[in-house]
């Protein structure tokens, strides 16, 4: 039985310690678990940073391509090092806190937002073995932390003591309160279909007949519709065009992060890409078969049946599938951003309450009947 990411880390630590001549078994258990957890989280943190950096670059290149211009192409091959150069620039920037801002909350807000964006990474499975914590409540946990992000953004908006910032915070609150519902309904559709909330089990359920065993087709048409509800709601949750009202620069300057600069701004920036990734990865896991390859055995192995490929290769292939799907969905988000105008604040609530919620309810009822009948 393959273990989780923590087990792999434990194994690595054990080997490393054995090389130095220490016996890992004598280290207290709590310390071992704690250390493994910490390292796994650090790895995830690194991954978030890499994803954010990569997509920060990709966003600009994609935008350049779509807008008949170049995008960053000077620093490094294809301008890949541009973001690193930018990061260095930002790190040495002056950190400004407005005089009338609430200093404590102003500093706390980006941290809360990042916590909210980062927490779901702990339960995202990359392959059958690669997951930091295999929580039985996986999806529920992942969704719950969006709340922390909302509070963080409201806090940023309020603590800045700027009216535009406050508008940004208010807009996000209205937006998120409406979009969590269709998101939850879409997740419930999948939960009813597979009978689990654990992300790993949900993916394991989707293996078999090529793409037709993925939830999107297995629960046709309910999960198919549910995926759009989930993805759109997630798009709204990650504040991306056409739902980028909280930071709509043409209306409310820069929304909740108007007053932020330097490192604190970067944290918001990181969080945005982290949230985008979480939404994309969750869509991939819930509806698009997670780490399963679209064509099993031919192009790639994935999942339990193909364990014969060996644990390392299997994990790598699973990871490639998973990251590929997530990145594609993230690319679609960029595509949206550089194509569509922004919707208005009443239209976003309309879309949620009058389109996505009924759609979600229909999906849920349909999936329930499906699950009972079939």
């Amino acid at each position, binding site marked *: 039985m393959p273990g989780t990411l923590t087990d792999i880390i434990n194994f690595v630590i054990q080997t490393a310690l054995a090389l130095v001549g220490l016996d890992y078994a004598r280290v*207290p*258990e*709590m*310390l071992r678990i*704690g250390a493994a957890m910490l390292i796994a989280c650090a790895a995830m943190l690194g991954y978030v940073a890499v994803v954010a950096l990569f997509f920060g670059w990709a966003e600009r290149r994609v935008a350049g391509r779509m807008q008949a211009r170049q995008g960053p192409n000077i620093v490094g091959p294809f301008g890949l090092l541009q973001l690193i150069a930018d990061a260095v620039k930002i790190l040495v920037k002056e950190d400004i806190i407005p005089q009338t801002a*609430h200093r404590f*909350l102003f500093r706390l807000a980006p941290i809360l937002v990042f916590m909210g964006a980062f927490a779901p990474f702990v339960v995202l499975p990359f392959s059958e073995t690669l997951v930091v914590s295999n*929580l*039985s*409540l996986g999806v*529920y*946990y992942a*969704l*719950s*932390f*969006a*709340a*922390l992000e*909302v*509070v963080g953004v*409201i*806090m940023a908006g*309020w603590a800045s003591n700027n009216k535009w910032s*406050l508008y940004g*915070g*208010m807009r996000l*609150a*209205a937006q*998120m*309160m409406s979009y*969590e519902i269709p998101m939850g309904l879409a997740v419930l559709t999948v939960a009813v279909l597979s009978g689990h*909330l654990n992300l790993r089990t949900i993916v394991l359920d989707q293996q078999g007949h090529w793409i037709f065993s993925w939830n999107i087709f297995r629960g046709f048409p309910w999960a198919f519709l549910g995926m759009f509800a989930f993805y759109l709601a997630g798009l709204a949750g990650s504040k991306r065009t056409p739902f980028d009202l909280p930071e709509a620069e043409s209306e409310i300057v820069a929304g909740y992060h108007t007053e932020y600069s330097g490192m604190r701004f970067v944290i918001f920036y990181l969080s945005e890409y982290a949230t985008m990734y979480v939404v994309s990865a969750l869509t991939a896991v819930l509806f698009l078969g997670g780490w399963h390859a679209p064509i099993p055995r031919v192009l790639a192995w994935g999942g339990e049946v193909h364990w014969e490929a060996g644990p390392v290769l299997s994990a790598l292939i699973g990871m490639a599938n998973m990251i590929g799907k997530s990145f594609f969905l993230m690319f679609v988000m960029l595509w949206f951003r550089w194509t569509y105008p922004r919707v208005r604040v009443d239209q976003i609530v309309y879309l949620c309450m009058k389109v996505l919620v009924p759609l979600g309810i229909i999906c849920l009822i349909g999936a329930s009947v499906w699950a009972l009948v079939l």
Partner: protein
Amino acid sequence: MSAEVVQAIIFYFLAAMLVVSCAIVVFSYSIVNACFALLFTLLAVAGFYALLGADFLAVTQVVVYVGGILVLLLFGILLTSPLPVILGVATRRTYYLAVAAGAAVFALLVIIVRAFWAGQPAPAEQQSSLEALGTLLLGKYLFPFEFASLTLLAALIGAAYLVRRNDH
């Protein structure tokens, strides 16, 4: 370092967070500050649930209280009141009343705890409580569960009614 010690450390950390944030909620003059402090109170409670193995309850606490109620509270406060929100300064009489009410609630809690859970250890199961919770809610506790929902529904309708009446 054993598991108990780690748990104890986490418990005391959470407890400190709870007490401090509660104190800010109660004593802060700015209602927005109080609201943000409430966030930490709610998170600390969620932490307690997680510590006790009730992971479903912990996540629900975050979803419902932080994501729903706290955001709604902030939304309402920031949108409907002038920008620097200052709570009215309490009079001496309200202080006395508050202390008395606090003492009464505390006494009640002591009685309840001593009467029902004296000497019982906290549930130690680390498995997901989701299935058990579902079975209990729709089995043994179906009536209280449904009754609570009905009460909340009645409260909701009542609130809507009151708002409508104030309109005219």
